[in-house]
């Protein structure tokens, strides 16, 4: 089995359109969550979100831009950054051994939303001829593949909130097996449209708007009220270790562990056993004992149920050491990017390991007896020696995906 090197990182997210800016903002405890100014957003119970200041017209010609939903625009921007960071010149690569693996939960949601407005609200039959191609879930992966001429596997995974963790894990497997040399893997999501938000609002799972909207997402705090949706994309270049070394690449980390399990109990309710099993499977695939993990970027959505269940699962896997293990939910700052969350948070965890800085869980105001671990509350921790990190993603539908990265050596 080949080892998997992470040689490139790219991100367009709330709080940063570069890895450097994002990590600096998270380390400073800044929040990217705020009131949304969208058409009709005043009709929402919870008109807040974590949006990205991004305009695709700086990147694409108008003719191409019209074919791209925002989710594909974000994906193209973040993946191009990751390739630039990796310093890869695909013209000298065997492109049929280079692939793309993308996670997205909702795909081109705003295109679908606009199409329905045309059809139902305006009672017009003239839906944009590009609608199907812009809205299809595999559009981001296809555009990335075309942009860079990557003719190996081109895959899209949609497992709700764990989509991009699955996309990374499955991509890593294709490198481990020797099938591919390079996989561009990550996630993208653009859910901030009225139609989508209304659906989430209806589930009564979104956070109640705080007097200071930027403080609305409070993972692990007793006064947490729900999650806050965000948009963005995060991509990693995964590369066969020997291939990366041979071209003299800078290796950020080794993707060494991937665990995948499924709750088969309830469509939304999380399960301690399912989450714990995914963490154990990731540790097993990395060949690590639990005590080797120095930081966990938690799923930590800020819903009453998830955070208590995740805490219990962490205790089950890590035992007494769980109390000494730094865990944080950066969703308190960048919101929940759904299908892009797993890739974004794995990238954040790698960034933390490289810099020795643990990003905090913000807005943890009130201790919850059911959440009694070390959540790095309120303030980043610096100068920490980190050898291995874990990033967890647990989804509606029950797909639990956990990734582990280790310091490159």
């Amino acid at each position, binding site marked *: 089995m080949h080892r998997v090197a992470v040689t490139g990182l790219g991100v367009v997210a709330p709080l940063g359109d570069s890895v450097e800016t994002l990590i600096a903002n998270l380390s400073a405890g800044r929040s990217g969550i705020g009131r949304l100014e969208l058409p009709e957003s005043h009709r929402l119970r919870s008109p807040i979100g974590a949006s990205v200041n991004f305009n695709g017209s700086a990147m694409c010609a108008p003719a191409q831009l*019209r074919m791209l939903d925002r989710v594909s625009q974000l994906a193209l921007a973040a993946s191009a950054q990751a390739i630039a960071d990796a310093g890869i010149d695909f013209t000298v690569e065997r492109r049929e051994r280079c692939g793309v693996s993308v996670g997205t939960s909702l795909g081109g949601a705003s295109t679908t939303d606009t199409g329905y407005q045309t059809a139902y609200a305006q009672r017009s039959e003239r839906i*944009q001829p590009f609608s199907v191609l812009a809205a299809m879930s595999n559009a981001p992966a296809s555009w990335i593949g075309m942009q860079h001429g990557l003719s190996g596997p081109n895959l899209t995974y949609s497992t709700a909130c764990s989509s991009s963790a699955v996309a990374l894990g499955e991509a890593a497997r294709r490198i481990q097996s020797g099938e591919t040399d390079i996989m561009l893997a990550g996630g993208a999501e653009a859910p901030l449209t009225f139609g989508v938000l209304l659906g989430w609002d209806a589930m009564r799972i979104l956070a109640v708007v705080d007097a200071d909207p930027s403080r609305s997402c409070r993972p692990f705090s007793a006064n947490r009220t729900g999650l806050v949706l965000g948009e963005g994309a995060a991509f990693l270049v995964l590369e066969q270790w020997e291939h990366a070394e041979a071209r003299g690449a800078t290796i950020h980390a080794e993707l060494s562990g991937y665990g995948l399990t499924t709750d088969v109990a309830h469509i939304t309710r999380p399960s301690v056993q399912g989450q714990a099993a995914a963490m154990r499977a990731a540790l097993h695939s990395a060949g690590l004992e639990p005590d080797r993990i120095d930081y966990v970027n938690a799923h930590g959505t800020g819903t009453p149920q998830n955070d208590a269940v995740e805490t219990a699962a962490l205790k089950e896997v890590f035992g007494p050491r769980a109390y000494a293990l730094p865990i944080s939910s950066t969703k308190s700052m960048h919101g929940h990017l759904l299908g892009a969350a797993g890739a974004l948070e794995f990238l954040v965890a790698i960034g933390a390991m490289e810099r020795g800085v643990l990003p905090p869980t913000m807005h943890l105001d009130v201790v919850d007896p059911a959440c009694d671990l070390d959540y790095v509350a309120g303030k980043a921790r610096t100068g920490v020696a980190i050898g291995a990190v874990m990033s967890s993603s647990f989804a509606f539908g029950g797909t639990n995906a956990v990734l582990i990265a280790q310091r490159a050596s």
Partner: protein
Amino acid sequence: MNTLEMLQDLLIKDHSLTREQLTPEAELSTLGVDSLALIELMFQVEDRFGISLPDDKVPDLVTVGDVATFIDGLLMAAPAKQD
């Protein structure tokens, strides 16, 4: 404004093309205007001239001039509001 100029304006706006490229002889495929872009263009033509395109398929239109001639034919058949 004649039909060709109107057509040129629409294509310049949406496809980053120049008037010099959009001669009557210029082929749509060479300009990057594919079949889907042509449908979108026809929606705009309908709005611009207040006409409805026939439900059956648009005939094979190869050049910019073909499109202009096709639109002119529709306008003659169904005189509509013009500004």
